């Protein structure tokens, strides 16, 4: 089964541990500007949402890349991978991604996009609230679907 | 006597307090009787084996039982016992 990096925004507290873990894993320093995940906070609403590359099956970044640097991984399921050695930094991928999840970083001359840390995402390990989960694709929405199904269970138990 | 519950203890008991007409002889007897009433989650919170639980704070009339006689603290009919999980700060 392939794994999916699932986001649960309702559990996000805006602590940004994910950004710190990501930047530290990739650069051995703390620079949220280097993080492939960003957790945005809206203070008035008290809501925070982490965002990273969703590894699209039919990825705009892959379709537009002239060198194949952006490509679907042949070694890991459900991953769009970036080959640094063949990338010409044309930044077409950053223009193509409709979600803004591919970014050019001048400081390191790289394209920043989530690579699932080769199968053990650090952001998931560091999130203290379960807002990020690396989970089998058969189960990544199970908890939500079940939580709502449980409401019917309670309602029917009351009347039957 | 009155036994009052706080924070997560309330989720184990389903109520915020309970009044008893008579006092059990000591705290151990009280907690044993309450554990029989409320079940496993409550028992695990207040007991660690035969000893007082390690993440529980119990006051008798405002005094922590650790400065009285622990589980052997004697109880009287007009006592008030408060049971807290270890809680916060600041």
């Amino acid at each position, binding site marked *: 089964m392939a794994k999916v990096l699932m986001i649960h925004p309702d559990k996000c507290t805006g602590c940004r541990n994910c950004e710190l873990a990501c930047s530290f894993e990739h650069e051995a320093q703390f*620079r949220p500007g*280097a993080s492939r995940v960003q957790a945005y906070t809206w203070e008035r609403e008290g809501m925070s949402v982490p965002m990273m590359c969703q590894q699209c099956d039919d990825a705009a970044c892959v379709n537009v890349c002239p060198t194949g640097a952006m490509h679907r991984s042949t070694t890991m399921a459900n991953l769009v991978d970036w080959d640094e050695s063949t990338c010409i930094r044309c930044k077409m991928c950053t223009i193509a991604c409709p979600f803004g999840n591919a970014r050019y970083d001048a*400081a390191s001359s790289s394209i920043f996009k989530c690579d699932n840390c080769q199968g053990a995402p650090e952001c998931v390990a560091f999130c*203290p609230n379960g807002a990020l989960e690396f989970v089998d694709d058969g189960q990544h929405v199970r908890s939500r679907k079940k939580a709502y199904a449980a409401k019917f269970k309670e309602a029917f138990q009351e009347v039957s | 006597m009155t036994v009052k519950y706080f924070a997560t203890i309330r989720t184990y008991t389903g109520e915020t307090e309970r009044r008893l007409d008579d006092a059990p002889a000591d705290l151990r007897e009280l907690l044993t009787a309450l554990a029989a009433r409320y079940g496993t989650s409550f028992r695990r919170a207040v007991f660690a084996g035969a000893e007082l639980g390690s993440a529980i704070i119990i006051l008798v009339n405002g005094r922590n039982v650790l400065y009285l006689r622990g589980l052997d603290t004697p109880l009287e009919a007009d006592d008030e016992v408060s049971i807290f999980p270890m809680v916060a700060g600041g």
Partner: protein
Amino acid sequence: MYGWTGTILRVDLTKKKVTREATDPKLARDYLGARGLGGHIIRSEVDPKTDALSPDNKLVFAPGPLTGTFAPSAGRFDVVTKGPLNGVLAASNSGGTFGPEVKYAGYDAVVIEGKAAKPVYLWIRDDEVEIRDAAAIWGHNTLDTTDLVRAETDEDAKVSCIGPAGEHRSLIANIMNEMHRAAGRTGVGAVMGSKNLKAVAVFGSGAVTVADPEGFKAVVMKARQMILAHPVGGAGLKAYGTDVLVNILNQTGALPTRNYQDGYFPTADKTGGESLAAKQLIRPKGCFSCIISCGRVTRVDSPGYEGNGEGPEYETAWAFGADCGVDDLDAITKANYLCNEYGLDTISMGSTIACAMELFERGIITTKDTDGVDLHFGNTPAVVEMVRKAGEGEGFGAKLAQGSYRLAESYGHPEYSMTCKKQEMPAYDPRAVQGIGLNYATGNRGGCHVRGYTIAIEVLQNGAVMDPHVTEGKAGLDITFQNLTAALDSSGACLFATFGIGGAELVEMLAALTGVDYTLDEFMLIGERIWNQEKLWNLKAGFTKADDTLPVRLLTEPIKTGPSKGDLSHLDEMLPEYYGLRGWDENGVPTKAKLKQLAL
């Protein structure tokens, strides 16, 4: 340098000059950062006799070395200045995400000097620093200020600002960041207002670097596990927030009630964390790098108290609750929202209203003084109205905005102000809990709990236990807490990390981060040094042994009802031993030998 950025930014608002200087590595080692390093700057550069609201005072925003890393719950900073409420060397601690942004912009401290001719705000984007006109923003509350400043700078800028209270130089005005986090006490907001500085906005694209990345990560993982395994740090605070303390303090008979006239409030449960979770909580919230998430995102729908925001935390729920004889949590939370919007310290505000209520019930003030408001204890709408008036500086509110000491003194009865060194005491009654009373009395910034939170041991059984009702051993307990906390504050860590880890883990993290071979002994010595630094300043500012005391009420009027009925504070049994153990003379003055030991 690792951990530290190596640069201090200075902004002179009078001369409109911006300069940079290198962070002295020896000072960084010996004072860490935040409260310690900021305190050293103020001590060295501001005369203790200076008028705190004059251009000669300075305002320092200083994060710590851990700030900006993934050390668990360690993203804090201090605002350090001469505190206008009482003249002490004041360091006001805050969370949120402002502190880390200062580090990413490249600074260990931002030192603001002088006074702008007209309202301005500061915009710091890495090494680009601008002093900008704030005419269109002056007058706005802290929420709107944050949005307005972001619209002119960067939508992701982190903003520290004052509300109308700071603009009016209320002595209990605070500085708010990220709309809901506060550098709360000692009137630091008034200093910012006196400089015509409305806000500081920061955006940083830099990094915090690590001397030993693998070692640092290993210690961090261990520290995270310890905190998450702790019942308080790992689950309790996230589920209930600090407001869960209401009931345990009340059941101990130590919940100050009606301006400290009593220690037990029968309907306190309605204001506690359990009620908050059931009625108002939307979700928990965490500061930068926090794994504890004690913050409360809340909403109130009751007519007259509608609003949303964050809070209340425990001291706030007490100050507008039991201390005012109020048990309506919706009103308490509304008062909390208003304080955040106006930029007022909730502890001092609530306690000042409680003081006014006692003056009113005793007939010392009447409706003629209170703009027609019947200020009896328990008058719930009046509490909310008084916060609004204080924030606006309107009528009787203008008097409330100067804190309870000046309020009570102006009517000839300072004894009804529940303050130490003119700062309002928080939510733990010294008559029932002896050690916290000693902490209030000896506190360098006056009535304060966080600087020496002995409650953790005396009431909460956090790692050790001591009977709150005895004085034995409390002098030593207070000193250990005060020293450890001073070092912890200065490292950038949050006090709540101590629900799980201790000095040993903090030292390991600091050593791996900075490359400095810190030991626990040195860490505690640093804390002791910082405590003594503040004490020396206070002595020069005019504080004496006579100021290391509690309100007469706590020494002579026993608690009236509840589990601690009949109790009094026995400060006199603890203070001499405290001075002795600190290496101070019988007047509380550090001896030459002690100063030499601390390299002060």
